[in-house]
């Protein structure tokens, strides 16, 4: 059962250590805050880049041009069949009459289409996929349907776009993982130094009869608190930078392909706090264990 008296004692120990070793506590918190800022900037950039890539790739559609001899019931059947496909998000039918109207509208003032007596444009089914990665196989299947003449989905360009997205995603993830390891090591070493400075204290605690967990808990609580405060300061700095920089960047460098406003910043902030707390807690536990003697 949880012993609240002991929990209160541990927190009192943490508070005492924070207030009496201010310089050391601030050093650890500062280092964690800087690490969190670094990690946060990269997580933010990656999330922005991902959003841009997804929106670009998300614009890929399949246009199925139908033969003129395909009758209305067959067109309905084909549309219904595509709508029922789980890989398909939405299906839109564009009649040849509507296609001509659209073309006339687009070319108004540039070209006189009245000279053409017939309508050479085909009836078209426009398919929006759920996942752009499914576009090539889906297009191939549509092409095999009777009455479908030509299927266009920007073949070649789409595949390149999909490959580029996969490469960028993998590279981004590797950078984040490496950065996570590097910042965790920086935080671990900082906390280890603060524990190292108190190894005499740990020894004395054990000599007066403290159990290993009685020695360990205040350090673990301290690690959690250091990690949380460091992360919150880091996040506050990131938010301040975000609020002042993003609107300026959007106005001054609109060509930069980062979608700043569509990134889930609250979600990122939560991730950073969790990283700070976890690394703080584990670093403290590992560091104290090094100096606890079992003899």
């Amino acid at each position, binding site marked *: 059962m949880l*012993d609240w*008296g*002991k929990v209160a*004692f541990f927190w009192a120990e943490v508070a*005492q*250590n924070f207030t*009496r*070793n201010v310089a050391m506590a601030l050093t650890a918190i500062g280092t964690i805050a800087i690490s969190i800022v670094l990690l946060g900037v990269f997580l933010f950039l990656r999330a922005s880049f991902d959003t841009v890539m997804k929106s670009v790739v998300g614009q890929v559609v399949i246009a199925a041009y139908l033969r003129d001899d395909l009758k209305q019931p067959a067109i309905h059947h084909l549309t219904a069949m595509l709508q029922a496909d789980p890989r398909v998000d939405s299906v839109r039918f564009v009649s040849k009459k509507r296609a001509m109207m659209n073309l006339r509208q687009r070319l108004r003032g540039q070209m006189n289409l009245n000279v053409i007596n017939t309508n050479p444009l085909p009836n078209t089914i426009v398919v929006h996929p759920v996942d752009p990665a499914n576009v090539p196989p889906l297009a191939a299947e549509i092409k095999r349907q009777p009455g479908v003449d030509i299927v266009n989905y920007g073949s070649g360009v789409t595949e390149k776009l999909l490959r580029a997205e996969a490469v960028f995603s993998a590279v981004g993830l590797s950078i984040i993982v490496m950065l996570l390891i590097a910042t965790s090591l920086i935080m671990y070493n900082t906390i280890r130094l603060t524990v190292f400075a108190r190894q*005499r*204290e740990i020894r*004395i*605690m*054990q*000599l*007066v*009869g*403290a*159990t*290993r967990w*009685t020695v360990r808990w205040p350090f673990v609580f301290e690690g959690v608190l250091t990690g949380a405060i460091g992360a919150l300061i880091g996040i506050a700095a990131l938010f301040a930078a975000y609020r002042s920089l993003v609107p300026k960047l959007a106005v001054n460098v609109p060509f930069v392909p980062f979608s700043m406003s569509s990134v889930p910043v609250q979600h990122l902030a939560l991730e950073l706090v969790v990283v700070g707390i976890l690394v703080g807690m584990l670093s403290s536990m590992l560091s104290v264990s090094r100096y606890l003697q*079992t*003899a």
Partner: protein
Amino acid sequence: MIVFRDVSLVYPNGVHALSDVSLSITRGDFMFLVGSTGQGKTSLLKCINREVRPTEGEITVEGQSLAELRAGDIPFLRRKVGVVFQDFKLLHQKTVWENVAYALQVTGAGSRDVLRRVPRTLELVGIAHKSKMFPQELSGGEQQRAAIARALVNHPLILLCDEPTGNLDPETSSEIMALLARINAKGTTMLVATHNQAVVDRMRKRVVRLVNGRITRDEERGRYHVGLG
């Protein structure tokens, strides 16, 4: 109460600290461990609170074999065996009160118990008026009194003192030894490692001499050197 049977201790670096030590200390005894530096006095004390494990032989404290203790039991042994060091080993970031209270709090004592026992113990060792000061603000003698208070607050059965007067002037040394004698008179078994000849000769308690880790003399109401006085 404390029994050593053929105890030998060899450190991992090959140093023979104790050789075939057999010793019996009854409850309430006051015993001096004498001998020059490096003869094994501190090692013998460290065996009793399980800071080190003998490589041979057996030690029992209150009938409990120390070899059979699991790592998790050691803190509970240490609450029965108080230790006082030459360098005091006080926690510098805690006040005198907090140093003494800490030894009590780690045993799970409630705040009412702490508020009752800490001032009483500080009173006993004569530094109640310095309870809010930090160790570095005290004299050597006062720091040693604080360390004794910390060792006493859990009412230990045994008090191990490793050169308790080693860093103190003669007058303060006498005061500290008088304090230890008073504590012993209340029933606490006392083992004092020292090479303070004046103190040993004046108190005339049991004297055990160690030379190269072996007991060469064990004498009731003894003196520091044989054949004097």
